[in-house]
């Protein structure tokens, strides 16, 4: 709540108290016996020209958040505003406009490209769906896009299986920028790639962002990559955002005990620098039955009495740094 007091003006994307619960069904009559609370009250925003990184471990709800924003999943509760317009309740023709403005690139470049279509057709399809260029023009447009993402236009008539993982990811990126969207949601775009290819794709994303004035929501688990690409970073744990900060601030001054543990757990390629590691005990609890109070308290080394009973709310440390922890109240 306190977030809204600080940030005024219009954000490109504004997500407010987003919830997504999945029913657990059992028995012959498929009765709902419980809920997986995948995303539980997430608020975030992305400004124009900004990259917001969303990090967390598997099962924390970061991908579900992305899918809800894309409306690939119907949110259980909460509002999603794009340029101030609530997209939770829009009609199909408005939906098509929305799809033009918000694009997505997913982790697995193998399963997100139709194996029966040539890559030229894959990248050109958005033009057809949205009826933007006359079909005679499309080939040229696609060739342009190919050059932009560093692929040879001669490859247009080839099929996805003829490309390596990195090239496929480039094809996915070409498709996502075809319609000149405002926002692209990346869900683990580089985690399936080799290190040297990863750097190429990250640099490409930087270049495209500059050239087309894009905004990114960058969902990933690798904090080093997220830190590199993002302007601001939101850390998620078990369906909730626990800390939001500017990229450098999050690294130099992490506040939430979970963020600190996460940062300390990452091995860095500097053998002389032995860092003090906070080893978290146990594992991420199930989102079906999340712990009471602060969801991190059973693993937190600094848990207090209040953490068990009361849920902490986001409070602002300063303009660019918010944390949801009782230590800072």
């Amino acid at each position, binding site marked *: 709540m306190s977030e809204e007091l600080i940030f005024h003006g219009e954000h490109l994307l504004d997500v407010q108290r987003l919830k997504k619960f999945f029913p657990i069904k059992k028995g012959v009559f498929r009765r709902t016996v419980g809920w997986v609370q995948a995303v539980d009250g997430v608020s975030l925003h992305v400004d124009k020209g900004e990259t917001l990184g969303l990090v967390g471990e598997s099962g924390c709800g970061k991908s579900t958040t992305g899918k809800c924003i894309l409306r690939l999943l119907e949110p259980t509760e909460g509002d999603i505003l794009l340029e101030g317009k609530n997209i939770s309740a829009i009609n199909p023709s408005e939906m098509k406009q929305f799809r033009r403005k918000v694009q997505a690139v997913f982790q697995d470049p193998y399963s997100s490209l139709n194996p029966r279509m040539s890559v030229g057709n894959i990248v050109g399809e958005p033009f057809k769906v949205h009826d933007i260029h006359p079909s005679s023009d499309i080939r040229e447009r696609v060739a342009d896009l190919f050059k932009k993402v560093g692929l040879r236009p001669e490859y247009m008539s080839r099929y996805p299986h003829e490309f390596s993982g990195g090239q496929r990811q480039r094809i996915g990126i070409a498709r996502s920028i075809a319609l000149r969207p405002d926002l692209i949601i990346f869900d683990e775009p580089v985690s399936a790639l080799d290190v040297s290819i990863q750097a190429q794709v990250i640099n490409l994303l930087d270049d495209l962002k500059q050239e087309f004035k894009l905004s990114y929501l960058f969902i990933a688990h690798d904090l080093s990559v997220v830190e590199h690409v993002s302007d601001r970073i939101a850390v998620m744990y078990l369906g909730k955002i626990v800390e939001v900060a500017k990229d450098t601030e999050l690294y130099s001054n992490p506040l939430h005990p979970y963020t600190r543990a996460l940062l300390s*757990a990452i091995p*860095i390629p500097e*053998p002389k620098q032995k860092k003090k590691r906070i080893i978290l005990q146990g*594992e991420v609890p199930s989102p079906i039955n999340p712990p009471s109070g602060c969801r991190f308290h059973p693993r937190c080394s600094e848990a207090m009495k209040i953490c068990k009973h009361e849920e902490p709310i986001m409070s602002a440390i300063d303009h660019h740094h918010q944390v949801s922890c009782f230590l800072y109240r």
Partner: protein
Amino acid sequence: MDLGIFPRVVGAKKFESKKMNDRPLLDIRNLKTYFFLPEGVIKAVDNVSFHVGNREIVGLVGESGCGKSVTALSILGLIQSPPGQIVSGEILFQGQDLCKMSPEQLRKIRGNRIAMIFQEPMISLNPLYSIGDQIVEVYTEHYGLSRQEARKKAKEMLEKVQIPSPARRIYEYPHQLSGGMRQRAMIAMALACKPAMILADEPTTALDVTIQAQILELMVELQKLMGTSILLITHNLGAVAEYAKRVIVMYLGRVVEEAPVIPIFESPLHPYTVGLLNSIPKLGSKAIGGKKRLEEIPGMVPGLNDLPEGCYFHPRCSKGREICKRKEPKLFENQPGHRVACWAVREGW
């Protein structure tokens, strides 16, 4: 064990090993593992030599397709044949050549003296047997213990790898455990026989960061306790920097550089190693030096069926010259313990 029946190393070697104080636990010499496919011969491991000392943790790094996993499988004699075959070379483990052993002899070593931890514990654990049964099998198979004794040992082992309530977990099946727990169970199984050596092939790649840290710490702790050597095969340079003593870098089936961990990270010589290190974003570097563009290695890893002549890296190398296109550079020792296969380093251009 039956180690005694094998002849010890002879003559000159013996002298050499005395001089070296101890011979390496694992010594791979000119190993070539090829796959004979209808499309042609794939040289997955091509003339690879390196060693792993007693109680040493050695990191084997490289990108996918560089032959690091095939190297591990070759050590264990697990190359599927056909199409794969160890064409030539020696894999000396405690002085005996594993390549020359019969499948029965290898079986006694595998799991007993050399254990393996794979990336995906869900695939490497049998879903039809409980965790306990699978560890029990190790004891009954290799030590000939009765099931009851083995079960007691298995329980101890689960305790050692810090699986909570082992008495209950022992009856659980792999699907009932989380990824981190499964990997712990794998480690328990791997360490059950107190092996001299563990081959860990991407042991933490499928795990979350915080769990990854737990597992690596656990592995190193147990390594110290039991005096095991570890060959840590991974693409995670951070993990290697932190835990390995020595690092071997592979590219397309060949070793391109080998050095102790500090020189590898602080003064790498091979352009591929340099490129690899520069292409990873470093946590916190933005806070110090602002946002910099990542350095890229241009182009991509060529397919193993379409290898360039000469140095395999030359099409992507900024230092490449005429000779690199024609002649394969051999590994040479640039400084004690620091070997590199590069014309530019050798000739000093």
